[in-house]
């Protein structure tokens, strides 16, 4: 066996071997290159569109991939000065914060007991909460629009603060359960023996150890709320009540005229923070979506 390995005719065919290897690596880089271009070209295009002069952008004679006039901030300025963009940012902040608050207040206790206690129905409750994450906005937007009327929140951004927790709660509860499970049971048991109450053990022992987990769900709740589109489109129509994503994709179109430069500027501004966050937390995010099916 060993002799056979040594006698493998690799050395003799080193040229052919090297050639094959070279061909393989060219193919590899070519495929990777194609994937990268496919993935990033739209973002590059957003970038180019944002900083082009209008005359350059709509000139069909030019190579659209390059700048023919010096880059400009006109489109970004238009976005900030002539649209409600700053209002949308503020709305996003307010609604996002409300969603985060509701999510944390509701999820932390639920995730805690679902992860650490056993009581009749605890398993089914956990799975039930998780499954609601599968219920799409497109199934519920019509009845929810009537519910929003009932709450007196027609055409108000606060309708979104009410509705968004329906998907942040299941998602974040499952993510948090993972974090809570990783805190060793012995620690809380020791605290209980020392006379700590159940609630005390949660607040004084497990929560301080799970701060990173709680911060993670805050970030997810905020970004999930910030990029939602279907509910926002259904419930909010006045410009000054919109959140950032909806505002950017609907308000820069006046009749048939698209303000592509400013639209892409807004798109870029929304995308950058979300993209950074999701890249940093990608594995956690995927774990959240698939309910811990991925370890």
């Amino acid at each position, binding site marked *: 066996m060993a002799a056979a390995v040594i006698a493998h005719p690799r050395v003799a065919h080193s040229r052919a071997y090297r050639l094959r290897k070279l061909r393989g690596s060219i193919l590899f880089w070519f495929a990777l290159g194609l*994937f990268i271009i496919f993935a990033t070209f739209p973002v590059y*295009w957003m970038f180019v569109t944002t900083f082009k002069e209008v005359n350059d952008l709509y000139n069909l004679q030019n190579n659209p991939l390059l700048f023919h006039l010096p880059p400009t901030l006109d489109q970004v300025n238009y976005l900030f000065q002539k649209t409600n963009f700053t209002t949308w940012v503020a709305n996003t902040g307010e609604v996002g914060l409300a969603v985060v608050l509701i999510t944390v207040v509701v999820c932390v*206790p639920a995730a805690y007991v679902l992860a650490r206690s056993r009581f009749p129905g605890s398993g089914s409750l956990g799975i039930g909460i998780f499954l609601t994450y599968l219920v799409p906005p*497109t199934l519920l937007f*019509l*009845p929810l629009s009537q519910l929003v009327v009932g709450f007196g929140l027609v055409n108000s951004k606060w309708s979104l603060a009410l509705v968004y927790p329906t998907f942040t709660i299941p998602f974040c509860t499952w993510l948090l359960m993972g974090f809570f499970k990783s805190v060793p049971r012995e620690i809380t048991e020791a605290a209980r023996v020392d006379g700590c109450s159940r609630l005390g053990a949660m607040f004084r022992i497990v929560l301080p150890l799970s701060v990173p987990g709680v911060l993670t769900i805050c970030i997810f709740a905020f970004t999930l709320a910030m990029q939602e589109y279907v509910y926002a489109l259904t419930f909010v129509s006045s410009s000054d009540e919109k959140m950032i994503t*909806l505002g950017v994709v609907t308000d820069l179109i006046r009749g048939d005229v698209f303000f592509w430069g400013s639209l892409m500027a807004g798109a870029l501004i929304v*995308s950058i923070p979300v993209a950074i966050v999701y890249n940093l937390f990608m594995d956690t995010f995927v774990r959240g979506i698939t309910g811990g099916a991925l*370890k």
Partner: protein
Amino acid sequence: MVAEVARARSFGINKTGARIGHLLDSERVFGYVLVAPAVAYILLLVGYPFVIALWFTVSNSTVAHPIAEFSGLRNLEGVLNDDIFRRALVNTLVFTLSSQILQMVLGTLLAFILLQRFRGRRIARALVMLPFTIPVAIGAMAWTWMLNPTYSVINWLGVHAGLFAQGPNWLGEEYPAMFSIILVNVWRNLPFTAIVLTAGISAVPQELIEAASLDGANWWVKWRKVMTPIIAPILYIALLFSLVFTFTDMTVVWLMTRGNPVGATHVIASYAFQTGVIAGALGRGATMSLFLFPVLLVGALVILRNLKARTLD
């Protein structure tokens, strides 16, 4: 002496027994109290609306008159006789299935690429993940601009590469529009599929693959007979999620084509939105939305079974 020990023991058992009982009792109360807000929120804002949706489908509700009368199956009849809806039903299946197939094939390829060791792998990974990390609505808008009838950069590239003389009006003609929607769906979800697959593949024990190699297995045999069986459960879950999300989504269609030209590219969700929200026919819109439910239910049941199997481990 013996009797004393026995008594002490039985006393101990009784005492701990009582204590465990007491603890269980409070654990139960504690559990229900803490999980109650989450359950209440979901019942109020998912469960209750779902019941209303069911009522809408059998009533003649409109936005102007949400409190309506029972109208039996008239909505269902109307929806099934609606040509655009029937088209939307077919479109939804076509969009979902072709996106899934493309995603699985390309995703597998991308996963294997990302698993290689090479210089700049982290950057490459971040770049490839980009479509999944930016909001769907934003991505769809960027593509709408790239496929603009007059200023399409794709057409410019195609013309200058000599692929076509003029390039199609991507979003204005039926088949190019359907192709565009599938393309954007794949663009958006490919990173998710790839990342799930990489996680799955890297969980396959290296020894197994080496053993197969020593036995002379080629890459296809290794993929089919060694890796696929191991990563199948994960793959399954990822596929189901991606399926459910694609099947029920309307964002891409709504932003890119609004279902046009003349309703040819509607999917169930976008047409339900058009009917229920824009036209205000709540009953009909809700009936259309309800067509999403069977797929959702099957998806949920399969995921449920899978999750239960995992919790038993």
